[in-house]
């Protein structure tokens, strides 16, 4: 289930369409070069603010969709929160946008036609449809579990209903589907569909819960994590989290190049935001100065 990394490219793309999808914004950008290389799970890093901006760092967004139109388009879905995403929300058709991608380790796909549950939280659902598509082309059965705080934040429910054998929705306020969280319904879904694997994308807390459920059922789980990123290409070392390697050693690995997709049980979710004392090079283990 390993994929060889692809070489990212930098592209000055043109915005083709902008749309609102409930609480989210979606931008489709003509970005040839990225599309050919794309695999489900990849993300793009987008320059924000335009010339003379005070915003230095790119923003990372999972690729929602790619299409061959106009030489290749990339669509991503986002919430307008801070100044960078607020700027993106103001882009209009024909504006240019500077993207680097595709980035990161994509989702590994099973060789056999197995049954997969795809779990998405908030905008995390957006990246799952490309995964579903790839799985279905390999003959896999796909079931969705999508959740969010409220109905307007559940992304892609309709498309999930079209693509999935079953689709289970949850909202914390009960405004759509079951009241509660994806992890409340996931055990039932896994049992019902007799799932062989889980793919998940969403907030860290959700990924932790999803992984716990998959581990309980003893089925593989692939999660796409999200850490604060300054570069997206592996050079700044800001996006690390503790992950257990094949050799059993915990390392602080970069979620932008070694991830964002990891085997769920390898991620030390409880220790995210810390340096576990037994991590390679942890203070106490090596030199003591702080640098």
């Amino acid at each position, binding site marked *: 289930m390993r994929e060889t990394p692809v*070489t*990212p490219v*930098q592209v000055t793309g043109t915005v083709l369409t902008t749309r609102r999808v409930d609480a989210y914004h979606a931008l489709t950008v003509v970005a040839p070069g990225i599309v050919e290389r794309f695999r489900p799970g990849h993300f793009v890093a987008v*320059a924000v603010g335009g010339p003379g901006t*005070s*915003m*230095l*760092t*790119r923003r990372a967004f999972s690729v929602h969709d790619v299409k061959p139109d106009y030489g290749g388009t990339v669509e991503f879905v986002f919430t307008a929160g801070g100044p960078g995403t607020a700027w993106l929300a103001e882009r209009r058709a024909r504006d240019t946008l500077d993207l*680097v991608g595709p980035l990161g380790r994509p989702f590994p796909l099973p060789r056999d036609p197995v049954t997969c549950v795809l779990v998405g939280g908030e905008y995390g659902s957006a990246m799952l449809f490309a995964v579903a598509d790839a799985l279905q082309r390999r003959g896999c059965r796909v079931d969705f579990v999508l959740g969010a705080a409220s109905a307007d934040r559940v992304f892609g429910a309709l498309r999930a209903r079209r693509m999935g054998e079953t689709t289970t929705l949850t909202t914390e306020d009960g405004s759509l589907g079951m009241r509660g969280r994806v992890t409340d319904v996931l055990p039932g879904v896994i049992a019902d569909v007799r799932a062989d694997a889980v793919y998940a994308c969403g907030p860290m807390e959700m990924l932790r819960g999803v992984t716990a459920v998959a581990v309980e059922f003893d089925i593989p789980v692939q999660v796409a994590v999200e*850490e*604060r*990123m*300054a*570069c997206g*290409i*592996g*050079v*700044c*070392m*800001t*996006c*690390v*989290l503790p992950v257990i390697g094949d050799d059993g050693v915990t*390392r*602080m690995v970069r979620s932008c*190049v070694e991830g964002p997709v990891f085997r769920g049980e390898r991620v030390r979710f409880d220790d*995210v*935001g*810390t*340096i576990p004392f037994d*991590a*390679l*090079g*942890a*203070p106490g*283990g*090596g*030199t*003591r*100065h*702080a*640098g």
Partner: protein
Amino acid sequence: MPVDMRTYLGHVELANPITTAAGCAASGTELAQFFDLGRLGAVTTRSITMAPRAGRPTPRMAETPSGLLAAVGLQGPGVDAFLARELPWLAQRNVRTVVSIGGGTVAEYTALARRLTDAPGVTAVEVNLSCPNIEDRGRVFALDGAASAEVVASVRSVMRYDVPVVAKLSPDALDVVSVARACVDGGADALSMINNPLGMSIDTDAMRPSLAAVTGGLSGPAIRPLAVRCVWQVHAALPGVPIIGMGGVLTGRDAFEFVLAGACVVAVGTALFHDPYAGLRVLRELEEILAARGFHRLADAVGLAHRPPGATTRHRTDFEESPL
């Protein structure tokens, strides 16, 4: 006419003046996906430490106006892994490599230098003095001329004679010129500046410091005026000492600003996070700017802004040999 972009770091010639800044190009392989690293004057490694280091907890970064606050904590594989994998990889590709080293004691820096002295492919050693001195209650070496000079002298004494030792200074020093002078007296062949000044930001939603480490290093264009000032002051005081200038270089214009202030090499750091091709682009833009102003050689522009008011530019003398 193409501009002669060659420059010298001590006795070592570089094909052009652009290098990556320490800690901003990871192991080199990441940028090599985008272009041939050999096209840069040099690549500077992250600061290598004796043992592997896991670095600081996350969040490690926060964006500030025209700046980046980061506290990575010198995460790296340690010198053994560096010598086994990273350095040979660079050497095989004929990349000019400035190896940055970081330590907590004079002995640790010295031990690192000893490990490097026989390693093939070390173009220069840059001593990252912005590390806490564990023998002086964690006070950063670079703030103290005597401590800095001691590290530099010790590294110089064990390093191969033909490998220049570069001392990397901090703008947080009370008087960057006196630290520079101490380092040169201690044997530094060149100086590099600036490392990141100490900054901080607060996440006003969480109402907590943005970084897990509370404080971090500020980089990017926000600090360029501090960096240009340091290069200017040190070049004025020590005109013969080669300077690697850095701090917020995004464009060829910015690199030219450092050259005019007195830098003969310019490092690109944070800009790489935004634009993996930044090094090459800055090089091309710098060459265009020099050509547009009639320079034939980069060397003629180094420190040119220091000429007394009314003086003509040095490179004008070249016009005598040219048809201009």
